[in-house]
């Protein structure tokens, strides 16, 4: 039994933690928020220099040629520091889509540029206020050209390329577009967490390339969502841990009625519940990491479990961190709101908690028996 990361992976995680601390930790997210930026360019350049955008890119395309587990440990540290960079969009989604579904021409053109930072990718799924399904897609491809609107597209302001799922003659396609094409209009959309930027992206006869099989776009995007759910769950766990650590530190230094507030059971039990939620989420993430890295058929179930569990943990830890801080927690000055807002954005970014619970139970419905541990 070895449900743990290797020493090399732990070393990488430690390096990532030190890196984000050294680069300013939460102050980067705060600076992006305070100055209405689209991301922290300097931090992003340094991440590219470290080679992390190429963690999963094979050495033949100038990447590091490592596995998903290395990505998991870096994701946890991105989540802990709330790093305001397009890493998740470009690495968890875009790069994975090219590795899995891109043809040789696309891969040899774009993968090396993702390593060097010349190309930044993102993804588009949502089109309206309702949940996207295979049958309600309105963005359409006709003879390789795309027309329609995607909303809540992360990082489109800094991205050069995008993958998106669109309606096609044969059902749904997964397609690749160059956002620098003149037919594309990108408009910022205000959102709850201004340490991250989201955009409306309009296509008018925009040239595109097919990824994977025509008509299989919905299946392809579901696979990418499952993979990304595990990686985002690690970000959520990192964020949960940071929020719990912050609540703990404050409960030790703040006095009320002549003693540390952390000595009251009302606070202790709150923090214990945060620890319980975090521990369950983390263990579910390990299961997800195993399923992701071993390309297991259990990935859809493991991803949904990690996703739901980590979403609950981060929302609980971030809101109870504010509560532990009392009035201070409600100010702009204290960092509590950074976690609260990021937890909300992460909880809907890949689809709502309810939709992932539905995926989880649909997968349970398909299985006849469950392995008992």
């Amino acid at each position, binding site marked *: 039994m*070895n*449900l743990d990361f290797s020493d090399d992976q732990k070393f990488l995680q430690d390096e990532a933690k030190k890196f984000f601390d050294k680069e300013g930790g939460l102050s980067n997210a705060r600076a992006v928020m305070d100055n209405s930026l689209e991301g922290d360019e300097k931090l992003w350049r340094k991440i590219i220099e470290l080679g992390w955008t190429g963690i999963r890119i094979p050495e033949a395309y100038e990447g590091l040629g490592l596995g998903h587990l290395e990505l998991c440990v870096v994701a946890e540290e991105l989540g802990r520091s709330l790093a305001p960079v397009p890493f998740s969009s470009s690495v968890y989604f875009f790069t994975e889509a090219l590795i899995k579904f891109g043809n040789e021409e696309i891969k040899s053109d774009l993968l090396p540029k993702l390593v060097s930072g010349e190309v930044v990718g993102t993804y588009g799924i949502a089109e309206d206020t309702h949940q996207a399904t295979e049958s309600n897609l309105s963005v359409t491809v006709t003879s390789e050209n795309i027309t329609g609107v995607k909303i809540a597209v992360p990082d489109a302001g800094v991205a050069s390329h995008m993958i998106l799922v669109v309606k096609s003659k044969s059902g749904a396609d997964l397609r690749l577009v160059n956002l620098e094409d003149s037919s594309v209009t990108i408009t910022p959309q205000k959102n709850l967490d201004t340490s991250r930027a989201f955009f409306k992206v309009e296509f008018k006869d925009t040239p595109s390339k097919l990824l994977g099989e025509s008509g299989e776009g919905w299946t392809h995007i579901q696979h990418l969502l499952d993979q990304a759910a595990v990686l985002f769950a690690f970000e959520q766990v990192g964020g949960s841990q940071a929020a719990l650590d912050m609540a703990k530190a404050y409960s030790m230094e703040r006095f009320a009625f002549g003693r540390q507030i952390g000595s009251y*059971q009302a606070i*202790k039990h709150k923090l*214990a519940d945060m620890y*319980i939620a975090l521990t369950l989420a983390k*263990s579910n993430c*390990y299961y997800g990491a195993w399923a992701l890295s071993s390309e297991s058929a259990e990935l859809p179930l493991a991803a949904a479990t990690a996703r739901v569990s980590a979403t609950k943990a981060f929302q609980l830890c971030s809101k109870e961190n504010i509560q532990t801080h009392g009035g201070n927690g409600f100010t702009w000055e204290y960092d509590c709101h950074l976690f609260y807002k990021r937890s909300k954005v992460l909880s809907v970014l890949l689809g709502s908690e309810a939709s992932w619970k539905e995926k989880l139970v649909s997968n349970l419905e398909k299985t006849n028996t469950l392995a008992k541990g």
Partner: protein
Amino acid sequence: MDFNDTPEQAKFRAKCREWLEANAELKENKSGGHSDSTLEDHLKVAKAWQQKKYEAGWAMLHWPKEYGGIEASPIERIIWGQEEAKFNVPGGIFEIGLGMCGPVMMQYATEEQKDRYLAPMAEGKEIWCQLFSEPAAGSDVAGLRSKAERDGDDWIINGQKVWTSGAHYSDYGILVVRHDPDVAKHKGLTFFFVDMKSPGITVKPIKQITGQAGTGAGFNEVYFDDVRIPDSQRLGEIGDGWKVAITTLMNERLAVGDAKGSDIEEALILSKTKDDAGEAMIKNDSVREKLADWFCEANGLKYTKFRTISALSKGEAPGPEASITKIVSANKLQEIGNFGIDSGDMAGMLIDENDGVSSFQGAWLGAPGLRIAGGTDEILRNVIAERVLGLPQDPRADKGIAFKDIPTKA
């Protein structure tokens, strides 16, 4: 990451498996066991199985070699436990002795006493119990009031213990009592072992909310009326009772695991098969939401355990993650039992004439006890907050004052 044994672990597992296959029968289903037999039959079968294990060297794996163990590593104990659980063999009788009483005897008893008591304990010839909790001392067990008074070479014990598992069939027990009420709470305690057949000991089974009493490893009240214990049966110094008790409680913490009973598998099977106004319950959105929540908890606990085992497997000290196990599993058990009963609508409350309580009804009846035994939900949250997260202890109203002056009522 993988779920495989190392080559040595696989070898040890094969050895366990080989012996078990030669000496016991595989369970045909998960619910197989000896629950229908009388207490006498169960004890007879359990003692015979323990004797068999003892002769083959499987009875007390973690004990030191000098006392007949094989000094098995934690991972080897886990492997043995996993394999033994697949076989239809009796359990639940010797764990307190081997897990708690044995180690405390090894540490504090004389050589003569060890020679006399340890082997029969390991062989299953003599059964041991633990006498700590009292009617007025549960979570605050150091607040116990049973008295020990010195009389020559003996001590005279008066008082009452409660929640003593297996006292009704035990031969010996370990006991902590108060020899001095004039000093602070933790300082006035002394630790003994006692012959449960001593004059003055009365054992009364506790009728629990399940309506059951004295069956299997049931709970008891134990009354002490002028019970004489020779000073030679004192374990540790006079006044060191709390220190000795803590050692045994640490061993208990290792032993307390998942709440057994209806889990997500059973809820899922029920949801798929049980009809709810024309379609399977699992088609109901509120049921689906509950199943998702329970699966996240059950799966989270399963892989939490795997993380602990992984650390032990590498010879490392596990992290504190296992501290969440009982809180999560006992509460989940209560919810799933409740769900199973509700699924029957008005018939859910009825008890089957032939089969007795269903497993869901049993889970619902038993879960309140599991949320209390071995540390209440509230105490366990304190433990997580104080020992795992490092938060300060509550100020204590009983600190630094003589035990007799500690307030006991408003």
